[in-house]
């Protein structure tokens, strides 16, 4: 294969690129920037999609909420007994959670109350209770926070503890006992985990109440059936299945996809303007050079091969640079500016990490959207010039 490549033609192509160094540099920079932008958008989009998918996968199968006058209220914990009696229900857990508005920073924290010895409804919470003993935390009121929360509290000089303002106006001082890793869970960045009773105090909740109840069923095909039974059992509740939540998450991502699409179209549009400009013709010097090469014995094939190498070298280098820059920008620098467009619904905009997702399809897609198009745009005008009568070309 390599022996079939005419290295003199490759050398000639490299020479041509270097001879037109300013033009080549300009094209490479523009091409690199567009490849970088496209690849970055794909990388960010892939990471967020992965993140949301993993969030959706970890969602409870059924959530039971108490509804009064169309609004959610605290639910009685003893409802769990009746739910557990339903055939097919494996587990039912009362969740104590809510939001705490921190006025100084203008952000909402998610408060999660956990019971050390109960089955946790999320793997990430199981990890937290394994790592931090919540019972020990409760003796001296303290909490484990996400990295985003930790940064916000630090920025506001709460380095060791935080004073929550309870609904009755009194303070509840809680120590910061630890920080949990948020590089996987998009949602965990703004989370504060406490012992369940302390969480209830902060939220002004009675001890026999919970925010909602999550239900686990043995057979996922039975989810809808069991949800309808719970609804019949407790007519004053709203029963949400994980399918309903998936639709909700998808809607959020679709909105993000709209922004993604707009950026994507702008990038492609700019790229095609360059392509159009390039394919609209060669300079008189380029045409003359083609004529001279034909006059000294180069065939049209030789000229097209040389032009192919020229275009391939420029576009492939720009593609590689664009991908490397996008990789650095997204996964090392965490995509400043662009990330803010994609991330940010009810989340703190601080230390959320875009997880690295290697998707070969993305790299191929960007390659096929850029390199072959640029090569074609270079070769077509060269072919037009190479097929006119040689005498006319050098005249």
């Amino acid at each position: 294969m390599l022996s079939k490549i005419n290295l003199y033609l490759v050398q000639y192509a490299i020479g041509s690129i270097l001879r037109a160094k300013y033009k080549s540099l300009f094209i490479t920079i523009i091409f690199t920037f567009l490849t970088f932008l496209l690849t970055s958008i794909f990388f960010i989009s892939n990471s967020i999609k992965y993140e949301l998918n993993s969030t959706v996968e970890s969602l409870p199968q059924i959530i039971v909420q108490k509804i009064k006058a169309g609004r959610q209220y605290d639910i009685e914990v003893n409802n769990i007994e009746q739910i557990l009696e339903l055939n097919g229900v494996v587990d039912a857990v009362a969740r104590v959670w809510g939001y705490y508005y921190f006025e100084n920073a203008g952000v909402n924290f998610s408060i999660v109350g956990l019971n050390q010895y109960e089955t946790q409804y999320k793997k990430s919470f199981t990890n937290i209770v394994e790592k931090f003993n919540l019972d020990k935390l409760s003796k001296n009121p303290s909490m484990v926070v996400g990295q985003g929360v930790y940064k916000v509290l630090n920025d506001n000089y709460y380095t060791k503890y935080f004073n929550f303002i309870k609904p009755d106006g009194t303070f509840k001082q809680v120590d910061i006992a630890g920080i949990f890793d948020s590089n996987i869970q998009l949602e965990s960045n703004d989370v504060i985990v406490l012992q369940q009773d302390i969480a209830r105090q902060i939220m002004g909740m009675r001890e026999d109440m919970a925010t909602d109840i999550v239900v686990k069923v043995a057979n996922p095909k039975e989810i809808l059936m069991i949800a309808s039974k719970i609804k019949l059992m407790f007519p004053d509740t709203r029963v949400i299945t994980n399918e309903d939540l998936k639709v909700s998450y998808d809607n959020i991502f679709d909105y993000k996809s709209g922004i993604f699409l707009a950026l994507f179209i702008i990038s492609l549009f700019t790229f095609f303007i360059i392509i159009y400009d390039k394919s609209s013709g060669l300079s008189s010097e380029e045409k003359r050079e083609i004529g001279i090469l034909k006059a000294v014995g180069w065939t049209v094939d030789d000229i097209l091969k040389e032009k192919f190498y020229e275009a391939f070298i420029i576009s492939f280098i720009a593609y590689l640079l664009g991908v490397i820059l996008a990789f650095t920008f997204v996964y090392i620098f965490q995509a400043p500016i662009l990330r803010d467009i994609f991330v940010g619904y009810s989340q703190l905009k601080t230390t959320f990490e875009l997880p690295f997702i290697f998707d070969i399809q993305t790299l191929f897609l960007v390659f096929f959207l850029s390199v072959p198009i640029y090569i074609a745009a270079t070769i077509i005008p060269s072919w037009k010039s190479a097929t006119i009568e040689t005498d006319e070309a050098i005249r």
Partner: protein
Amino acid sequence: MIKLKNITKIYQMNKNDKVIALNNINLHFKEGELIVLKGSSGSGKSTILSLIAALSKPTSGEVIVDEKRISKLPDNFAALYRRENIGFVFQKYNLIPTLSVKDNIIQPLIPANPPEDELKVKLDNVMKRFSIEHKKDLIVRNLSGGEQQRVAIARAHINNPKIIIADEPTANLDEKLSLDFIKILKQLKESNKTIIVATHDPLFFDLDFVDKVIEIYNGNIVE
């Protein structure tokens, strides 16, 4: 060796405007001859050279070189024919001004992808023969007219073609450089090349090693 039979060449400038560059001409050149085509600008001399080099096709008639009808050759075959048979020294040299001397000279060899040693030997030989080896790395646009012409001759000669064609070779040279070119021409003639020179420079008309001087006027041969 070279036969032009009933050649007519018409350039269609636009719908209603055409120029008859050659009008039914017949010519015959033998191998090893040095032919001078003389005539004023626009007489049709360059068109004859262009047809022999298969750079253009006649409107009617045939160009036959070594019994092959080169006027009917498809584009890629015409290029191969040029590569193997023709060395062309153009009036304005038609060098690529931003390339070095050696890169200009090796252009006819590149498509054949010869081994590096072979290419180097050929390059060194022609550069020595035409006394430009000391300029090999210089960019062509920085050379004088005479030096550029030597580069053009070296390029025309590197494939050792049977036919050397020169179009107004002394048009851009002073008298001394013109005489230098004539010396080179004599060398080439001695190596049994068939040489066709189109010129209106009187310097060529009385040279003792010129075999034939043919005058062209308005696309016709002056008998």
